[in-house]
């Protein structure tokens, strides 16, 4: 691992917030350092799982929101 590389940089890499040069440097390091590669694989997997995760509100609350919108007009909101 190079002196300038930190574990936080790996996080920036996972979230696509590195420059092209940093990206190349990290990818080079990932090929050389098995431990680092394992960490990358584990954390990237969790990150992808989080991206797939979402919660859905009830129809009841959505209807309340839509009904509120319909009952309010431009002139009454100031």
């Amino acid at each position, binding site marked *: 691992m190079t002196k300038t590389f930190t574990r936080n940089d790996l996080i920036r890499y996972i*979230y696509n917030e590195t420059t092209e040069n940093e990206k190349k440097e990290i990818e080079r390091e990932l090929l050389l350092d098995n431990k680092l590669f394992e960490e990358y694989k584990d*954390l990237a997997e969790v990150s992808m799982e989080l991206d797939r995760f979402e919660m859905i509100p009830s129809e009841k609350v959505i209807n309340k929101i839509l009904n*509120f919108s319909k009952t309010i007009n431009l002139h009454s909101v100031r």
Partner: protein
Amino acid sequence: MNRNEVSDKKLVSAYIKGNEEAFELLVERHKNRVFTTINLIVRDNYLAEDLLQETFIKAIKTIKSGRYNEEGKFLPWILRIAHNLAIDYFRRDKRYPTMVLEDGSSVFNNLDFSEDSFESMQIQKDTHARLKQFIEELPLVQREVLVMRHYMNMSFKEIAEVSGVSINTALGRMRYALINLRKKITVNQSAYDKNFYPK
């Protein structure tokens, strides 16, 4: 034209002109993201639905009164409102909302999945239910960074600015959040696999 092809900006413009269907599309498009953002912070389904309603009502009032000026950036704007309301709730009451039920049944019954088979749907549902629980168990600072990065699409620079910490601190919190989640998933994976794939 495909409903999904219409931009948020056009939908907001149509809504300003009185098109309620445009607003319905906006709500349909973003409700899950906004709800997830709130729910992962407050950790209470009922409260999250109240705050979701409050968020959209605030947005409706702002747009209908002509004070909306975030053209083309509807989602980041409404997510900011949602996030602020969720955090304000904490500050106002100075308490952590409690998980609703220990068995999680009523907490997770709002999860919905697009998988076809019952089995895959059940597995997916269970995975998401556990993930939700694991996220909720994270310390607030880690959970907040996770929510801002994943569900509010904020950069670490923006997160650092909003949170009043350095970028390295924000990155460190994200890293520990992922590490903690990974540990929790790994610990539970074995028992989970045995339940679903008995030998």
